[in-house]
Structure formats: structure tokens, C-alpha cells
């Protein structure tokens, strides 16, 4: 089956059984000066699944994730999230305030660099509480207990819940990011190279936690990584990106065992 057929397959097959996607992005294009970062990218993410986006530097995967987090807008493109109690509209049309509130309440994000995602000099529990405060929580006891629950679910030692991220190791910092991201039980969890840069043993532990959490709570996740091992461990479906375009997509085991596109084959076989 050639690539044309395989993507035609995704479009043509009538939706028989699965629930409608939580996230739909259509026709996403973005240029930064002379660089075309995204080329007419279509993405869907289904409830409770982990979508892996794999690609090398410059593939556009992080750009796409930033768009999902409403941190940046495309030159062209439509973005919809199926959220309880919300009308269906293109999220790129929201104003500043609406975007911020939507992000605060419905989207969690974990960055590769903890300095981006955390307030390093406030307490870890405070970092989680800040999310709850932005969403309007005003009871101190509730803030405390929800922070505790989120940190515990992220397998962060509660004895250190008031330690500041600046005092913690890389793996612990990522756990605080995770706790912060899931505190409000978001409809969508975005992870941008969450374990890249960590020691290998620590990576394994953090991925463990992620996997357990995902299985228990059926969180819908989009996981971006250049590391195929990470994608293989976590993802249900995979999108392969190159130079801003999607070159292949499919079930994770299929993309790794029977890659269709020459670039994907190269990537998969290149694993040392």
C-alpha cells in the first residue's frame, strides 16, 4: 500500500464506531520568514488516546504543539476542541482572555525545560495551587488537598511538597510539571519532549508514571518526541513529521513494524 492510499484510507473510511475526536486541526500552515514550519497539516486526537508526534529537529512538531496550546497562531488553519459545555468554534478566533481561560481550564502542558513550565522559586505545591487559583479556587484547604493529590498521582514525595523546584532534581521537576498539568483534570495533556535531557534511568521512571497515569485516568495526550523509544512506550497512534509536513500516520505498532514511507523506514531502522 503506497502512502497516497494510506492517507486516503484515513479520510475515506466512514467513521464506524469510535467516538468523535477531542481535538481536530485542519490545514495548519505557518511560515517564519523564509522557513515553512508547517505545511497543510491535519491532525485528530481521539478521546483517551496517546498520540505520538515524532520527527527530527525542524520537523515542525514543537511548532504544532505550541499551536495546540494556543501559544501561537498559524497563517492558515482551523482548531477545534470538543469540550463539555462549550460551543464548537475555531479556537484561533478567541480573544486573549478567552484563550488564557481555556488554556488554564482545559489544557495541561509539560515542557522539556522545567524553567518554562514552573515558577522555580515558589513551592512545588504552590506551583500546582497557582493553576487552581487561576481557575478560581479560593479555599486554602482545597488548594492544599488538591495540590497534594496531584503531586501524589505524579509520584512526587509529599514530604517535599513545599520544596521549591530550584532545589529539586530534573526528574522531580518534571513530576511537578506533570502535577501542575493534571491538577484541573484537563481535557488535553500536551507533552513536549518531557523526558529529554534526563538521565536514562530517571527517564524510565517518569515514563512509567506517565503511562500509569494515562491508563488510570484515560487522559487524552499528545506527546512530542524525537526519541522513538519514548514514542513506542507511550503512544497508541503516531504521526511522523518532516520539514513541516506529515509523511506518515498510523497505529503505533504498525508505524514501527511496517513503516510505509521511506523517511519513516530510515528513522525506524536508524535506532541504535
Amino acid at each position, binding site marked *: 500500500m503506497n502512502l497516497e492510499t494510506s492517507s486516503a484510507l*484515513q479520510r475515506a473510511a466512514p467513521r464506524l464506531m*469510535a467516538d468523535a475526536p477531542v481535538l481536530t486541526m485542519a490545514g495548519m500552515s505557518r511560515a517564519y520568514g523564509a522557513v515553512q514550519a508547517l505545511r497543510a497539516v491535519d491532525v485528530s486526537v481521539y478521546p483517551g488516546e496517546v498520540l505520538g508526534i515524532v520527527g527530527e529537529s525542524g520537523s515542525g512538531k514543537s511548532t504544532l504543539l505550541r499551536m495546540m496550546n494556543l501559544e501561537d497562531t498559524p497563517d492558515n488553519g482551523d482548531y477545534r476542541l470538543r469540550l463539555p459545555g462549550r460551543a464548537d468554534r475555531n479556537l484561533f478566533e478567541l480573544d486573549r482572555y478567552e484563550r488564557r481561560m481555556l488554556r488554564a481550564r482545559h489544557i495541561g502542558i509539560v515542557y522539556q525545560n522545567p524553567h518554562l513550565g514552573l515558577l522555580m522559586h515558589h513551592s512545588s505545591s504552590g506551583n500546582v495551587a497557582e493553576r487552581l487559583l487561576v481557575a478560581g479556587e479560593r479555599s486554602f484547604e482545597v488548594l492544599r488537598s488538591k495540590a497534594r493529590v496531584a503531586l501524589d498521582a505524579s509520584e512526587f514525595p509529599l514530604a517535599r511538597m513545599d520544596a521549591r523546584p530550584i532545589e529539586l532534581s530534573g526528574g522531580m521537576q518534571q513530576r511537578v510539571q506533570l502535577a501542575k498539568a493534571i491538577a484541573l483534570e484537563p481535557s488535553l495533556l500536551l507533552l513536549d519532549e518531557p523526558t529529554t535531557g534526563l538521565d536514562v534511568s530517571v527517564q524510565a521512571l517518569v515514563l512509567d508514571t506517565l503511562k500509569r497515569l494515562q491508563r488510570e485516568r484515560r487522559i487524552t495526550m499528545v506527546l512530542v518526541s524525537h526519541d522513538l523509544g519514548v514514542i513506542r512506550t507511550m503512544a497508541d497512534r503516531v504521526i511522523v513529521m518532516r520539514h513541516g509536513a506529515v509523511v506518515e500516520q498510523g*497505529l503505533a505498532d*504498525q508505524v514501527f513494524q511496517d513503516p*510505509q514511507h521511506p523517511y519513516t523506514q530510515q528513522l525506524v531502522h536508524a535506532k541504535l
Partner: protein
Amino acid sequence: MNANSFILRVQGLAKAFRMFHLEATLHAFEDVSFDLSAGEFLLLRGHNGAGKSTLLRTIWRSYLPVAGQVLYQSRRGEIDLANAADVDIALLRREEIGFVTQFLNARPRVAAQDIVAEPLLLAGHERTAALEQARHWLDQFGVRRELWRAYPSTFSGGEQQKVNLARALILPQRLLLLDEPTASLDAGARAALVSRLAELKAQGVAMIGVFHHPGDVAQLIDREINLGTRVVAPAQHEEPQYVAV
């Protein structure tokens, strides 16, 4: 059996691997057709490399077929697995179709009994009952009691395999694909497996299996398909290709 009561209807299924870096195409099988009804056990035969595993994986959709149809009667209606959307395949894999290999996808720090109980929990069964069932099957397959709360990632190959089987067979599926499940099993576990398969078969589960020693499951087999090979006449510049039929 009524021809219209099939669970699975494979028609003209073909698989070839296009390997760009070698500029070659590896043909695995072509023109495979068969029907499978509820409670039927189909054995795939053929020497090594004949494409038996490949056929199973193509039905499971780890591999994408290059031609043909795989019509499957799911609880929600008929669907062509060869052309279905990824999400629908994912749904069917969760709910109706099982794939049993010799390899366990060991998740670190999850206890054996929890791994085995999981399909029941996902299907909505109550926790205590699910764990009881899980322990029963671990016992049946000969996993020692001390190991039930331990992490399978630390087990030997054979023990992992038993956990694997217990999990794969705990919840009756509609269609079961078995890829050499008896490899590295001791006699006791093998017997437990066959017994469980017989039970499931009696409950109407359709099965397609590849077995290194078909004798193990002799009494379960309803039909066989032999994926023989023939040489495809090569073009001038090509090497001869071997195709499983």
C-alpha cells in the same frame, strides 16, 4: 455452517514489504481467502518464512495489506479491517479482537495479578472479582502464588509467557489470533492453555493460530490453510521473489 454466519471473511489478501533503502520489494503472501465462523479454529501451516505470522499480523493491522479485504463482523456491524480507520482498529483491539504472542509487554511496577486482571477492569468488572479471576488463571497456568504480587518484568521468559497468556485469555474475545503461544511453555502450562482455548471455543470465540507443534491443539483444529511457496518468474533485472500463497 451457514456461509453467511462468518465472523471473518478474508478475500484476496496480499502483503508485500517495500524496502526503499534496499530498493527491493519483499512479497510475503498473496491471494489469501477464507471464511471463519464463530467457534471455529483455523490453523495456519507452512514452513518458516512462508508468511504465517505475517498473515496474522496483517489481520491484526500491525502490517498494512497491499490488496484484499478482511471483513469482520463486530458487535457494532461489519467492518473491513484492511481499510478501517486507525481509531476503529484500536477500539476493536480493546474490545473484541485479541492477539496472543509469546512476548509479554511487561509494564514495570505493575503486579502480575493486576496485569492479568486489567482486561476485566477495563470491561467494567468489579475489582475484587476481577482479581480473584486473575489469580485463578495465574494458578491454572502454573504461576507460583508468591509471584502474583511481584512485577513480571523480573520474571523468566517462561513465567512472563504464562502471565501473558492468562491476561490474553481471561476475557472472551470475539476473534483470537494466536502466534506461537506455546513456545517456551512447560507441559503443564501448555495443557492449561489448550484447555482454556477449548473453553473459549465452546463459548463461540473464533480462532486463527500458528503453532510450532500443531499436535498440541490437534483436537481443537477445524480447518487448516497451508501457505506454501512458489517462485514468481523474475523479470530480467530482478532477483527471484518468493511468494507465499
